[in-house]
Every structure is written in C-alpha cells, then in structure tokens.
C-alpha cells in the first residue's frame, strides 16, 4: 500500500485532479446527447485514467506502472474511441434523441449514485486510510454511472460507451486500491475489453443492416413468445 508520507502534496493534487476529471467525464457522458461528443468525452476520460496511473507510477518510481500508463492511454484514449467512432457513421442518427430517463433526472441520479458509492466505499478506506485510497469511491461511482448509461440510453453506441465506462471504473478502482496491478492481469482485462468492443461493433452494424436503426428496443421483437 502506498505510504501517506511518501506522497508529496503536488502528487496528491495531481492525483485528485485526474480523479476529478475522470468523474466529471462520466457525468458529462450523461449530459451530452450528441454521440460524437460522447465518444470524445470518453476519450478524455481515458486520458484522465492514464493520468491517474502515471501519477502513481511517478510516486512509486515504478517502470511497470509507467508502461501500464502508456498502455492505458493507447487503448482507452485512442484505440477504443477510434473503434467506436468507426461503427458510428453506419449507425444511423447521430443523436441520443429520447433517453429513457431525461438528462436532468440523469444528472440527479448520478449525484445520488456518487453519494452511494462514497457511503459504500467507507470500509475500504478505513482499511488503510491514505490519499490514494480516499479516491477509490470515484472508481465505484464511474462503474455505477456506466451501468446507469446502459439501462437508460437507447442507441447502440451509447450502450458500448456505458459498458466501457464500467470497465474504466473497475480499472481505476483496481489501480487505486492495490499498490500495483500485475501487468499480466491488466493486459488480460484490456484484451477482453478490446474483443468485447469489436463484437459490439459488429453487432451494431448488423442491427443497422437489419432494422435500419440502432434503437435497442427494436430487439424486443426477437424474444420468443
């Protein structure tokens, strides 16, 4: 576990800044309706996540973490947004026209989820209080917000972004709670996410071809009656 004394105040500031940006990006995803903007915000969130890892790497003087930071940046700020964007032109209307829960209510819900995450994460923080572990609720919040995006947004692209938000949140929580995520684990998780996005991209294209739309509620007709 990271020692409190070892963190300089500048590092702590930088870490909290990254975490703040990370959380803010998730909330902005809820706020924006333009799909292209959502993907851009998601890419920025990837940068923030890479920033968190980079700060930790500098603090712990760990080459492995630095490599991971670069990897996170490459995958989550560049690779995945690129893949999602590639699926977009084919994916019909470029706007999230009518989410199941409107934007204002979504933002309120995000606030409630944040409070819940802070309340739930308290025992984790008391296990070993340090500036780093105090940021853990941010990861948890992003997981919950991602889940919320999944259940309220209609477009396939928003669904993919929701799924990726969950994964970003999990990754952030992992980096913040453990001193070091083993490289092999992070690689494995990243590969999984990459494959999931590829599959979702194919599905989105197929949906577009089959229904002329990517509204997931069109899939209702597929159930057996």
């Amino acid at each position, binding site marked *: 576990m990271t020692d409190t004394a070892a963190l300089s105040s500048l590092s702590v500031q930088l870490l909290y800044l990254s975490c703040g940006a990370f959380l803010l990006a998730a909330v902005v995803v809820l706020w924006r309706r333009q799909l292209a903007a959502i993907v851009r915000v998601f890419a920025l969130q990837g940068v923030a996540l890479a920033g968190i890892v980079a700060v930790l790497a500098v603090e712990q003087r760990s080459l492995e973490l630095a490599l991971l930071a670069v990897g996170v940046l490459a995958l989550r700020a560049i690779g995945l947004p690129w893949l999602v964007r590639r699926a977009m032109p084919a994916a019909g209307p470029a706007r999230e026209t009518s989410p199941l829960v409107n934007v204002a209510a979504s933002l309120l819900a995000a606030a409630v*989820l944040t409070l819940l*995450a802070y309340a*739930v994460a*308290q025992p984790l923080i008391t296990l070993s209080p340090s500036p780093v572990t105090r940021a853990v609720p941010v990861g948890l919040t992003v997981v919950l917000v991602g*889940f919320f995006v999944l259940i309220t947004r209609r477009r396939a692209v928003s669904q993919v972004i929701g799924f990726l938000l969950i994964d970003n949140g999990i990754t952030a929580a992992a980096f913040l709670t453990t001193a070091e995520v083993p490289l092999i684990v992070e690689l494995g998780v990243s590969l999984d996410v990459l494959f999931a996005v590829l599959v979702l991209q194919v599905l989105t294209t197929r949906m577009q071809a089959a229904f002329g739309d990517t509204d997931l509620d069109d899939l209702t*007709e*597929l159930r057996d009656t």
Partner: protein
Amino acid sequence: MNPAAVGLGLSLGAAAVASVTALVCPDRVRPLLVGLLAAVSGAAGVVAGVAGMAGHRLAVTLPDLLPLFGIRLVLDPLGGLFMAAVGGVAVAAAVFGIGYTSPQGRGGSGLHRRAFQVVYPLFVAAMLLVPAAASIGTFLVCWELMAVTSLLLVLAEHRRRPAVAQAGLWYAVMTHLGMVAILVGLVLFAAHAPGGSFAALRDAAGELSPLVRGVVFVATLIGFASKSGVVPLHVWLPRAHPEAPSHVSALMSAAMVNLGVYGIVRVGFDLLGVGSRWWWVLVLTLGAVSAVYGILQAAMSTDLKRLLGYSTTENMGLVLVGVGAAGMFAAAGNQVLAGLAMAAALLHVVNHAAFKTLLFLSAGSVLHATGTRDLDELGGLRARMPATTLLFGLGALAASALPLGAAFVSEWLLLQGLIHGVAAGGVAFAVTMPVAVAAVALTAGLAVASFVKAFGVGFLARPRSAAAENATESGPTMIGAMGLAGAACVALALAPTVLVPALAPVVGAAGPLLDSPAAQGALTLRLVAVAGSLSPLLLAAALLVAALAVVLLLRFVADRRTRRQARLWDCGAGPLSARMEYTATSFAEPLQRVFDDVLAPELDVDVTHVQESRYLVDSVEYRARVPDRIERRLYQPVLRLVDAWGQAGRGLANGSVHRYLGYGFYTLVGLLVLLAVTR
C-alpha cells in the same frame, strides 16, 4: 507385474486411441477401427477386473491431474467385479457396433459419423473408471463423465426420431438431479473427512452422528437409485434406453445401471459401515416395488426395447432386494445370511449384465433388419433371422428365472437368503422377508409371461407387416457379438460353481460384517451354514436326458401309425392369416385385467352409428393405453408446477434489453444501499 495395472492401463489407452482414431480416420473404416479398439478396451477391462477380484490390489494417485483434489484410483475386489461386468458388456457391444453403425448398413443410420464414434469409447472408459475411483473428487468426475457421454450417445439419432430429443431431455434432467443428490450426500460426508479419499471417509464414518449418516445414505441412495432406474425414479429409463442406438442401450442397460448398485454397496456397506436397519428396509422396499412394478409394465409393453428397459428396472429391483436383505442381516449381526444375500445380489448383477446385453443386441438386430420395435408389427422372424431368433430365445430363457437360465441361479440364491432370513430373529424379519419372497416369486412369474410374449409374438408365427416379412439376417459381426453374450449366458447358467466361490473376496470387500456364502463343489453349489444345494449342470443333464427320452418315445409311438399331411385346423374359416394371431396387446390383456387396479389402463371405445338408424353400428373404434401411472401421478403435477412458474417468469422478460440490464442495476444498487445502511 500387476495384471490389474496392465489391464486398466491398456483399457484406458485403447479407449483414448479409439477416440482419437474416430476423430481422424475416414468414414468407411471408422466403425471397424473404433469397434475393435473399444472391444480391446473392454477386454482389458475384464482382465483388470478379474485380477482385482483375485486380489491384485491397484492404487494409483495422480495429484496434479485434476486441480484441487487430483485423481486417486484404487481397485479392490468389489470394484473389480463391476469393472469386469462393464468390460464384458463393452466387448460384446463394441463388436456389435461394427456392423450396426457401419455406413454400408441398410437405412444409413448415420451412426458412423464422427460425433457418435468419438464419444462411444469415452463412455466405455468412464464406466470402467467409476468402480476404480477412490476419492470423492475422482468419483464425481468419472460419474459425471459417464452421464454426459451416455447422454450424447442417447441423442445420436435425434434427427431421425423426435422422441429421441424428449427422451434425452428426461434423461438429462433425471441424471443431473441424481448427480446433485450424490454430490450433496458425499460433500456432507467429506466435511468430516479431510482429503475426501475413500480411506479417510471410512475412518471418519464411525464418528458421524446417526442423523448425518442417515442423511448421507439417503441422499446418495436417491442419486444411485435414479441411475439404476429404481421406482419411482425410473421414468427416464424406459424412454432413454429404447431410444439410444441398440448397442448403446446394451451398455446403458446392462452396464451403467449396475454402477448405481455399486454406489449403494460402496457407500452403504464399505464407507458407512452398514449403519442402521431402517436404511436397508428402505432399500429392500424400493427393490421389491421396482421389481414388481417394472416387470408389470414390461408385461404390458408392446415396444420390444421398452419392454427390455422395464425389465432392467425389474432386475435392478431384485438386486436391491438382495442388497437390502444383506444390509438388514448385517445390521442384525447375522454374517452368514448377509454374505449369502449379497452374493445373490452380485451374482444377479453379473447374470443380468450377460442376458440384458444379449437381449438388447438381439433387439438391435431386429430393429436393424425391420426398422421397427413394435412387437405388434413383428412376428415370423424365425424363418428369416434364425440366428437372431435362437439367441433372443436364449436370452429370454436366461431372463425368465427358469431352470437352465442364468437368472434362475441368482434368484434361487436370493430366495434361499430370504427364506432362511424369516427365522433370523425379530419382528422386522418375520414381516419383511415373507413379503420380499412373495414379491420375488411374483416377479419371476410375470417375467416368464413377459419374455414368452416378447419371444412368441415377436419371432414366431407369421409376419404381421411387410417390414417383418422382408427381414434379412444381420451380418457376421452382429451375430458374433450376440453369440459372445449368449455364450456368457450359458456359462453363467451352467457353471455358477465357478463364479460363486470367486465372489467370496468381493463380498468380503463390501464390509467386515459379511461372510463368504458358499462352499465349492465340482458340480454342486452347496451353501454354508444353511441347508441348500443346487447343481445346474446335473439339472441340465437330467433335462436333456428327459427331453431325449420323450422325443424317442414319440418317434417310437408315431412310427406305428400312418402319417398324413393336412392343413392346420382353422374352424373352417379359410386359411389362417396374420390378423388371427395373438398380438402383444392381446397376449397381455388377461394380465392387464388382473392388475387393473395397479395399472389403471385407459380404454376408449368410440361407436359410430349408421346415419339412418342408431340401432345399427357403422364402426367401433377401440383404443387401449397403459400409461406409466407413477409418472402420471408423481411427475406430471411437478412438471405442471414448473411450467406455471416458467409462464409467470415470462412476464418478467418482455424482450427489452434495458429492462434486463435494469434488473441487474437495481439489484446491485439495492444491495449497495443495504450494505451502506446496515454496516
């Protein structure tokens, strides 16, 4: 060098090679190669099993092969007997399969395909491994492998007949419920024994409370009894065994069901050390009910393979009567009678394996030649399929507990045990033993009726359909395999004096409370401590002499009178046709009337009147069906309940992805709130 180790190694190796061969070699030669290798595997299994019975102990521990618990194999005489029985059945079934699954065969069954042939040797190997497994992990893995491979084999012909899929569903559900019961019992047991090896379980059994021991026994009994097709858990058996390809039916009905008995004996006698008397009263009751109910349904059945399937339930019932009686005697401290009853049960397992293999293979030969299993559409096969007819007749004789049949010896031994047990002391014996004797006797009588029906209606008289009329005899491998099983039946029937003394170490391995049952004699089987002896060989000789004498006498008398050729008497109604014959339904009708209250047959008579006058009848339609009453009363309500539950659940699933995700989200948030509030 230990022959048990060589045999088991060779057996598993051959099965593995067979499976790989099936994967790579072309369609034309696949059935031949797989059949030969599977037969080698079975034969090596017989060698290993017999070596195990002869006292060559084998213990193999491979701690790294499976994560967490590793593989642990121990072959003792008890496991050896069951391994030898499985191996023997596997040899005959594998040789039969060469001809039966050949792509050149008539109808093109599609059984030569890769998927079927790859799984077949694995099924044999799994069954050979079950009696050798010596830890809970190993046992459950082998057991499940056996269940899954047999399920795949049952489903082999699902494209040709829709009934196969339904049978597979029943089998899959029942076998996995049974697996769950076994798992619960053994895991509860293992909680008190570190490591979960059978040796550790044996040591820990003494320290368990009677309640835990009882729960362990009943849970495992449920699982093993469902595998053996014991009433009321038998419903899958008369569906799955007939729908499987015939040589797989033989493997399942003659070999796999035995392993259920093995499980009961292993857990009840060996691991739990006999325990309380009520366990064994329960086993005996289940056995007696299964025997009578099974053979009654068999007597009513018009489907040849279904009849054989119900007969399996009957025979497993008889075996359980023996096992239950042995347990009661052992719990009461009567070692001699316990040993006698156990030996009778084990001998019946072996006999049943032999004659059920023969019968299912012959039924397969008939099915292969005619394409039907319906006895009402068969008949007249004697002239066209003489070898199959002869061998089926032999199997029917062996199954019907008449002198010169294999089952006669074991049922005689069983009756000896039960009759002498009446005086073994206590009210429990005085009540249960006579009832059990009556059940066994009734079963024996009904078995004769069933097999007379199967043989007489199916093979004799005139053909009732074009398929039966155009039947041709099966190929040499199929006849050869049936001949092999037939030879085993004859050997078991005439020379039990060889096998019964060899059962002594097997019975001994089942527990210290059982004694060796029989003294050997060259010709006569003499029982120890209770009066009783039997010599099937002398009996056979006497019967042969008597039959010869009668034939000679008739010749002598008949030669004195002039012979004349004449038509069979037909009441003057013109030549006899196939429609005047007894069918399977009409043959069983008197029995159906006698057991009306038990069977509750469904009769449906529709009378259509002539339009002009209702006093004149235009046509009468008569339908009779004998449904499985236990299935109807016990299973249908449960199935309806599950169905209603499923319908109610359907309201939750409206097809909206958001709703499904929402269920997960709200549950998660709810749990987190609960956590945050209650912490």
